[in-house]
């Protein structure tokens, strides 16, 4: 299966986009989302705290405190990345290649960036449908379909022309 879900959540824990590739009931989603968001937020908080300490003490020692972008959660992993106020969280199977997913997140952001120009949380929020279209072109049934940005954006441009 590979990718189980992709979430975009802001610092306040508000979901901006949620796409699941395995069916979860609403209750399951309601339980899952805050849980993993809390987990990942806590990690980055800690990271920021550590970075603050760096200036005071020995940088080398405290740089070690930085946490990695992979969190084990239940029986799968979450690969996450933060862009300004927005977190991208991708749930993957345990044997998935984590770094490949991490860069796939970046590819997604770059693609949105190309379309929106300096993409921000509000773009995704107010253009929910476009964000969905892009994702739809990139991931299907938990597998990566396309990594070529022009191909990904072609249908959206087509639609823009039609509107």
């Amino acid at each position, binding site marked *: 299966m590979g990718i189980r879900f992709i979430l975009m959540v802001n610092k306040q824990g508000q979901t901006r986009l949620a796409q699941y590739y395995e069916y979860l009931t609403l209750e399951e989603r309601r339980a899952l989302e805050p849980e993993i968001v809390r987990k990942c937020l806590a990690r980055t908080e800690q990271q920021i705290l550590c970075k603050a300490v760096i200036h005071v003490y020995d940088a080398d020692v405290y740089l070690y405190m*930085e*946490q990695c972008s992979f969190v084990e959660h239940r029986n799968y992993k979450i690969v996450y990345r933060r862009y300004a106020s927005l977190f991208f969280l991708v749930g993957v199977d345990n044997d998935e290649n984590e770094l490949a997913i991490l860069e796939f997140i970046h590819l997604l952001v770059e693609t949105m960036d190309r379309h929106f120009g300096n993409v921000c949380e509000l773009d995704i929020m107010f253009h929910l*449908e476009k964000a969905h279209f892009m994702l739809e072109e990139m991931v299907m049934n938990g597998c990566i379909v396309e990594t070529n940005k022009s191909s990904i954006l072609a*249908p959206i441009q087509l639609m823009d022309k039609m509107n």
Partner: protein
Amino acid sequence: MALSGMRGLSVFISDVRNCPNKEQERLRVDKELGNVRTRFKNEKGLTPYEKKKYVWKMLYIYMLGYDVDFGHMEAVSLISAPKYPEKQVGYIVTACLLNENHDFLRLAINTVRNDIIGRNETFQCLALTMVGNIGGREFAESLAPDVQKLLISSSYRPLVRKKAALCLLRLYRKNPDVVNVDGWADRMAQLLDERDLGVLTSSMSLLVALVSNHYDAYWSCLPKCVKILERLARNQDIPQEYTYYGIPSPWLQVKTMRALQYFPTVEDPNTRRSLFEVLQRILMGTDVVKNVNKNNASHAVLFEALALVMHLDAEKEMMSQCVALLGKFIAVREPNIRYLGLENMTRMLMVTDVQDIIKRHQAQIITSLKDPDIRRALDLLYGMCDVSNAKDIVEELLQYLSTADFAMREELSLKAAILAEKFAPDLSWYVDVILQLIDKAGDFVSDDIWFRVVQFVTNNEDLQPYAAAKAREYLDKPAIHETMVKVSAYIIGEFGHLLARRPGCSPKELFTVIHEKLPAVTTSTIPILLSTYAKIFMHTQPPDQELQNQIWSIFNKYESCIDVEIQQRAAEYLALSRRGADLVDILAEMPKFPERQSALIKKAEDTEVDTAEQSAIKLRAQQQTSSALVVTDQRPANGTPPVNQLGLVKMPSMSSNADHNSTDQGLSQENGTLSKVDPQPPSADLLGDLLGPLAIEGRPATAGQQQQTVTPGLGSDPNAVDASAIVPVGEEQNSVQPIGNIAERFHALCLKDSGVLYEDPNIQIGVKSEWRLHQGFLVLFLGNKNTSPLVSVQAIILPPSHLKMELSLVPDTIPPRAQVQCPLEVVNLRPSRDVAVLDFSYKFGNNMVNVKLRLPAVLSKFLQPIPVSTEEFFPQWRSLSGPPLKLQEVVRGVKPMPLVEMANLLNSFRLMVCPALDPNPNNLVASTTFYSENTRAMLCLVRAICLFPGLQTLIGGITAQLNPQLSVRIETDPADRTQLRMTVASGDPTLTLELKEFIKEQLVFMPPAPHAPGPVPPAPPVAQPTSPVAALTDPGAMLAGLL
């Protein structure tokens, strides 16, 4: 910021965003839901644009976590809209809101199919995507051929075909038959020739799914995958848009290497060479660069390549390269790479024999414990720990424990406890570790951990004073954890008296220091403290009046405690302590614990199951390690003879009793006491323990007195006298003494199919066997109990003429703590009582050890019990008249046993006793079928009659006539059961004779002649009265007997 084309949607999203709190948000959402619902109700008035807008609002609300229980129909109906924008919304929102079993989805199948086979490729894409995301079984059945056509046909553009590939993957998962068509593998291989990387990426995902189930159908795809890798790695013909930070599609590279990991090997030498060239290039050519994205992408490829190299079992040189790379990674600052380095090193540990190279990085790995992502390092350390580095690793874990994240502490302490137990170089260190563990992280130390340390201390006398002194030290600390109170109180109660002459350790002082803790503890601890008081009181010699009053007043107080456990103990101890001398007997030291599997290890195994990965590597690793055996450390503790062992696994108490005979032989004989040998076969679960992943343990020596306490009156049973006196041929020259009685072990194995055949301080040989007609399949489990290898291992089978035996290759060396399995096949040619002998030798240090062991491939193993009715029995019995087909013998000196037991004995030799067949209830009749290659199935009848003046009793057995037959008849005398008349009959004279003799051997008590050569089995263990001894096998009863 450009607003969405749908103004109403933007306004709503904006409203929700501006809500100051959750309550307001809910109100706004409810209002909108009401609005949408009303609009949907008069559907006729809705334009497609409005419909689209409302459907998006529903999706948005659903995403926020509110239930949307209406409007699904509207979403689905948009699928059939003629225009692209509406259709698109319909497909996407349907895929988000509905699951594959939703009824509405079925309604849309036709529309979806029309879109898929239609000519509009944008519609095709939308439909394929939705089916690929939520298509169910029905879709698989009706759409699969169409989707396949789209994927294969080159007349469709890549944008359609790439979606068709993943759509087909979905349909395949719903119904694997959709691609189980002839020639699909060839088509799949053709697909891999595709130039378009989009189609190739999707097709590779499809291939991964297919080969993960049936790789053997797809061998033709393997060279194509290697070609794709070559193309990517050499950056040939890769469009700019498919390179990511200069790296040709890292995702496709990763997927391709993943697909290759599902093939067990790469056989074709050319393909293999090409593949290794590519892998080598990736391994060596990946540099750390400044750009984070480029770095991540290239390392994603690199880690996948590492996994593939591990999978392919590359040459040692390449493996060392990999470990060197991983060693580099775990030292870098970048947390992701470090994490993956640790994770992959853990995998490496399981797959190949590079442990030693990995150990060089131990210091670095230990540093990684300070990472916030400690788990990876912990797993790796746990995996790489062995006797050589246990001390370092466990002490690091302990040190780290007090600063570790709370969430990690339980796992940390459990793992530290397990490692300490598994690999302790000496027992006092183990005790130190556990006590430190309790001291530092008492809250996270489960009861299992302290129970375990108590077991060890109880079972190892050398350890007791040390443990007591340690416990005493901890009690001096001002605030100790309640678990520490429990464990130290228990140890002081049991062994505190061993400290008597040390300062601060008089009974009174011990009492005081423990009693100080009482006000702070919970009710679960108080019973333990009460027992401790009782024991301290018992050990106070001469009695101390003041202490007595103090303790009595405590018992008095708790006698009316509301907690039943406390109340009962207080009341009983008070009563007991007034009985004077009796107290000493009743409150004597606790008996040794029966060895059992460590609850901790079991627990750890259980938790591992939860997180088990499904990756190809891991699966393989599990298969490889499953035969490994963890054996206890046999190194003598504190310089004493090897009686103290860190037992890991439960052994039935019976065999430990037997062991005491040999390990404590000197002691028991000196005292004139004898350990009673339990006649019952070991419990059935012996094998599970023995052959499980953690087999073997040593067992503690037991003092003879204890045994005597349990079985008074049985100690003088003459039958047990020289149970251990039969020494295998050549045994005398060995300096290594066997543990347990070899003859008894053989005998037990004659009765059952698995168990221990031989054990000494260095090795344990277990046998598991299966018997089918005239064939036997045995597996010998050779377990090295030591931490150094056993060399010059030799096992030669000396088969008697009637058995054809074939032993598979036995390795020359058994690695430390490893178990080797050697299958052995047996074919029975004809009836005979002769026994096969295993001539086994090995070298340990300078000692050559050689033993000759009888193998339990005895006559009875080739018998198959068979019931016969009266109508069948007697005609056959009569038809076999007189010698040599029917033989009769009066057997004297039979071990006395009740009739029931004799029946059981016959049954256990696969002679089926047929009750009520003989008119006389005192007679036994049994029947069985004998199998050999020459005679095939042959029926045997047995009848035993007790010789009682004037009365004949049938005991033997009889069988029906299929082929040549055999019957036995034994007549016994109810008054004098040492005599019986046995008649055996079958259609084959040799069989009759051999079976008669065989049964006789089992029935007759033969005084075991010391150094008796040849295969004369001593009968005693088989046939003794069981009832009084039953208590011995049950540790609970044993305890009860003592208390």
